């Protein structure tokens, strides 16, 4: 056998022996007795009680966090829903008209797609896409829960004219109508 082959064989054997040497140990004597003595008792190792405590606590924390997030969303939902559409719709609001309906936060009902004023019945230019048109019809459920109904608000669409809206007043926050120049329709050949 050449020295090279001998070395290779020795290396293989050496690896086998080293592994065997590491692994050929036996458990301490009395394992059976120790195990049986523990069978009635609850296991108290740190690795067993930790999950039993941490999992319920973690689950409870998740539930509380979810409830908190949901409730805070519900509280903030009307503001999010009305503020983007108030601006474009209330552009032509006249101060006098605002004064005539001081407490009419009827923004949601006035902007429902089903009640939107058809362009042919109004001389106003068509409005650009609003969140209501982009994200689908609004149900108004959230707003209806927090905004008191205004008498006569539904009649706005019936007579075909949008009434100017008052400033949106929230506790500690007043959002005035945007002061934008009125849009005038321009024909294509005039461009």
């Amino acid at each position: 056998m050449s020295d090279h082959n001998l070395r290779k064989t020795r290396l293989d054997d050496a690896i086998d022996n080293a592994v065997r040497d590491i692994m050929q140990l036996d458990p301490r004597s009395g394992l059976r007795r120790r195990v049986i003595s523990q069978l009635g008792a609850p296991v108290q190792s740190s690795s067993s009680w930790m999950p039993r405590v941490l999992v319920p606590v973690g689950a409870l924390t998740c539930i509380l966090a979810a409830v908190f997030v949901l409730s805070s969303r519900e509280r903030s939902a009307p503001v999010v829903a009305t503020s983007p559409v108030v601006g474009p719709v209330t552009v032509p609001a006249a101060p006098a008209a605002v004064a005539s309906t001081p407490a009419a936060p009827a923004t949601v009902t006035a902007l429902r797609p089903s009640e939107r004023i058809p362009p042919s019945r109004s001389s106003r230019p068509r409005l650009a896409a609003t969140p209501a048109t982009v994200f689908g019809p609004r149900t108004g459920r959230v707003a209806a829960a927090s905004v008191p109904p205004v008498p006569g608000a539904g009649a706005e669409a019936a007579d075909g004219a949008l009434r100017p809206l008052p400033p949106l007043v929230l506790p500690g926050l007043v959002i005035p109508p945007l002061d934008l120049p009125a849009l005038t329709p321009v024909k294509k050949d005039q461009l």
Partner: protein
Amino acid sequence: MSESTQRVTASVALEVTDLELVRLAQAGDVDAFGELVERNRRAVFRAALAAVGSATEADDVTQEAFVTAWQKLSGFRGESQFRTWLLSITWRKAIDRRKSIGRWLKLAASSRADAGDDRFDLIERVPSPERAQDIVLESNELQQQIRKLIGTLPRKLRDALLLAGSGEHTYEEIGQMLGAPVGTVKWRVAEARRVLKRKLAAVGYVHE
């Protein structure tokens, strides 16, 4: 209990299959479970040893694994071998322990490495008696070097190599424990040996 009675009891116990013992244990027979402990203690201990690398830790894991097996025994339906099921529990426990203690065995630093326990049969291969002394010394050093290098192997390779070298587990059982097909286990063992040889060659143990 007389010696002859003990012998009879032992022979009867050997005739009872693991599954029968499991059924008895499921009915609350602690002695039957004790017999299962006796039959599987070495396989369980060595599986734990391969994972945690310390005999003391492996002993604790072994005990925990058996206690857990007893607690979960009602859920065992005999769809697999009891031993395979038990080894899976053991391996999970051992891996948890390995993670929790955050250290892997220092094979080379262990006291056994310094004990000079040489199992090489070099005299048969090396005819020259003058050279034999040198080679024995060299092989001691080689053993220590291999232990060190086993400790540096990637976990997957090391686990497969040690489990396969334990002499207690089949490739199927190792595959069940590691969650890998038998072919993959075999490849890992061979790869572990290749890596070891390459590293040994790098420190001068193979001259080409």
